[in-house]
């Protein structure tokens, strides 16, 4: 799934900034289908791992309270232009995905 995530990573002069968006429904499991009245099963990302050159820098534990198409932004130290960033995620239904970017 090439379209499931967007990552931007850039040198901001002081350290490295990351902005990422993952395309995911983030269903809470509390909403009801308006037509059938049945509950829509929960479907949400539980874990997101951010790596810099293969080393973990940030782990996000998420629940159904995170918005649809989650957005994540943070800064970190110790990287230089050209370094690799990889972000991978898992959801509660066994779905997963990952995407990489190069620091510009």
């Amino acid at each position, binding site marked *: *799934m090439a*379209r*499931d995530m*967007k990552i931007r990573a850039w040198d901001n002069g002081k*350290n490295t900034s990351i*902005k990422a*968006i993952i*395309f*995911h*429904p983030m*269903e*809470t499991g*509390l*909403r*009801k289908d308006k037509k059938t009245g049945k509950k829509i099963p929960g*479907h949400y990302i*539980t*874990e997101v791992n951010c790596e*810099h050159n293969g*080393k*973990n*820098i*940030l*782990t*996000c*534990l*998420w*629940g*159904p*309270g*995170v*918005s*649809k*198409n*989650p*957005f*994540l*932004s*943070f*800064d*970190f*130290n*110790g*990287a230089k232009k050209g370094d690799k960033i990889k972000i991978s995620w*898992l*959801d*509660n*239904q*066994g*779905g*997963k995905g990952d995407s990489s970017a190069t620091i510009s």
Partner: protein
Amino acid sequence: MDTMRRIILKATMAGGTLAVAAGANLLTPSSVLAAWPAKAFEATKMDAAMDLLTGKDRPEESADITVVAPDIAENGAVVSVKVTTTLPKVESISVYVPVNSFPLSASYILSNQMETAIAGRIKMAKTADIVAIVKSNGKLYTAKKGVKVTLGGCGG
């Protein structure tokens, strides 16, 4: 910031079709989720969620944590939140919305390479405080920010 706006617009439009695509691999089992604190995320009371995630210790109010969020959120389904702190040795940052069905929204585990600021978007059921709890040097600290929500974002 125009590029960011583009991304957000595209994200909103892509949401519908991707939901269907994601449904295709519904039944894949996953054993990797063991590390995810399911009980803390399923807790329906703020205190229970805190006990399960960070233990019985209660956090201390701290002026060194800033929770940045809008004063009024028109749509509770998407509330931007940024937590920044100047506390040393930050191990984790957790975000709670006490009135939500599941108060624990997100928890971030930071490595020592991280700057201590994280931004994301969460859902809010109704007008409430967003509570951030920061674990710094083994101790817990907290700060909050009130957000008025005009349209709830959790369905039900």
